[in-house]
């Protein structure tokens, strides 16, 4: 390479990467460090750094709500993940790839709608759907179908079934989030199923396998890795999701549907008394970060993200 070329390389490099680097450093890396630091302070709305060491973390251990909220979070993540982000996603992708292609795509498109709808509008729709008869959609449908004695309410604390001790309000929270969550896995699984060579499926059919057997013994094993990936990735996403719950129940009634991320938000920014506890809020957030980092390292090992980072394939010097 001519020398002159090498000399102009550096300034251009700066033009290319500096906008991104400056923004990421200011509004991403710095906040990461600050969050950690703030979690060791009793910072409030005055934004003063009064260091209290591990005070916030001790407080968390004694916080009688924290235990309940941690249980809520674990339940919420597992239930939504199993029923929707993986479960429903599998059902939709397997079914839509087994029917007429265009029709299947239309069904998948419908499931994409909740994800691209602004969260506020999405919650308006849900509130409305759950409104009492005769206005609410669900109760109206129930009545029209003749189930006049049943009625849905958003904040129903009764168990959904005598044998299932899950309050109705939790069912709605899971549905609200799950209807958005299913589309991620749906897209990945659909791509993976479409990539399975038809020969395998035909071979199974020739050998006399039923549709269910083909799904169980051919399709599912072949999309094992996508399933694992979606499970891993979506666990993290669910763990830190709170926007829909904030708008839908605001963690209520009481702390019944409060999740960890929402608790951190409430401690820092809620409008009611005791708010602007930035120090404690940050400490709560750090817990999420630690869980997230441990999980990320594990995924990094499992999915060999390192492969993504191979040297740039064109050496320019």
């Amino acid at each position, binding site marked *: 390479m001519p020398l002159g070329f090498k000399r102009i390389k550096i300034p251009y490099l700066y033009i290319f990467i500096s906008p*991104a680097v400056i923004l990421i450093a*200011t509004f991403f890396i710095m906040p990461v460090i600050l969050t950690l630091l703030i979690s060791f302070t009793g910072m409030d709305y005055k*934004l003063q750094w009064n260091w209290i060491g591990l005070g916030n973390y001790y407080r968390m251990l004694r916080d009688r709500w924290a235990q309940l909220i941690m249980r809520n979070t674990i339940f919420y993540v597992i239930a939504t993940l199993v029923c929707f982000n993986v479960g429903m996603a599998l059902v939709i992708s397997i079914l839509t790839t087994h029917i007429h292609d265009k029709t299947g795509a239309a069904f998948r498109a419908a499931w994409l709608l909740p994800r691209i709808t602004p969260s*506020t*509008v999405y919650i308006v729709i849900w509130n409305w759907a759950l409104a009492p008869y005769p206005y609410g*959609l669900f109760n109206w449908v129930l009545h029209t179908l003749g189930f006049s004695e049943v009625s849905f309410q958003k904040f129903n604390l009764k168990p959904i079934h005598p044998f299932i001790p899950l309050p109705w309000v939790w069912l709605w929270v899971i549905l609200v989030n799950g209807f*958005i969550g299913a589309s991620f896995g749906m897209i990945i699984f659909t791509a993976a199923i479409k990539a399975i060579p038809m020969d395998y499926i035909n071979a199974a059919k020739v050998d006399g396998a039923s549709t269910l057997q083909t799904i169980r013994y051919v399709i599912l094993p072949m999309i094992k890795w996508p399933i694992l990936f979606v499970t891993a990735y979506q666990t993290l996403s669910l763990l830190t999701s709170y926007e829909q719950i*904030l708008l839908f129940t605001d963690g209520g009634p009481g702390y019944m549907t409060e999740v960890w991320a929402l608790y951190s938000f409430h401690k820092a*920014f809620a409008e009611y008394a005791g708010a602007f506890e930035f120090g404690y809020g940050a400490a709560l957030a750090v817990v999420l970060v630690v869980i997230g980092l441990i999980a990320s390292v594990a995924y990094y090992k499992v999915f060999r993200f390192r492969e993504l980072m191979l040297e740039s394939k064109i050496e*320019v010097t």
Partner: protein
Amino acid sequence: MARVTEYIKASIPYLILIAITTPIVLMYIMLFVASFSRTVYGLVPDQITISNWNFLLTGYIQAPGTGQVEAGRYPNIYIVTFNTFLLALTVATLEVVFSSLAAYAISRYNFKGRNLFLTTTLILHSFPSITLLIAVFYVLNILGLFDTLIGVILVKVALELPLGIWIMKGFYDGIPWDMEMSALVDGCTRLQTWWKVIMPNVKGGIASTMIFAFLSGWAEYIFILTFIVSQQNWTLSMLVASMIGEWRFVDYGQLAAVSFFYMLPVVIFFLFFQKYLLRMTIASKGPI
């Protein structure tokens, strides 16, 4: 008889799909119907009217129960819409330009710190915005950007850049080096090559990133809620959220109309640019 069993078997997937998908479709139909009716019972409009859309003529929404008092009005709908549009468009533009620039360098240069940069962006992806809200609040305060749309825009772009860079890098990696080489040999500078030779080849990727960033900016709620105080800086998400806040007293038809108005760009993208949306959903950092 065997024929009938076949038909029944073939229709099972359809039946299941219809059963699980109907609620979603009905909910959106309900919103649409409600925006054009005085009262709606389930899906049945009571009286078809366009009065719910009056706010488009008058420019403001009167909170229910406040008569015609000016204090009872939400901020001007056109200002709010303009803010939302400005936020979404700026976020999308900055994100696309910055991420395609940075990704180009990463895909084509081998510089010191390249791996550090890639690893950092990857690790940053596991820091969801909730964990950073408090610290970002602090930074915005120090920079004097609290309660400004610029602040929200910069934060949003910064938080979405790492992922954008990774996606754009993937697109660049798929372009053969020979194309650029010939441009460089012909005397183009690096910047010219990027703009004239490479960018036209990643149009699809850019369109996807742009649409997705636009919709994400259009829907942004948490940052507005947390970092914006003044009503003149509100976006539509804030407007709709505060209308839900007064759920008991709200004019439902009007709420449906405003919500549907807010959804229009989403509907347009959904109907006409679905392939881009599908491609990008996988990359969504979204809540769930």
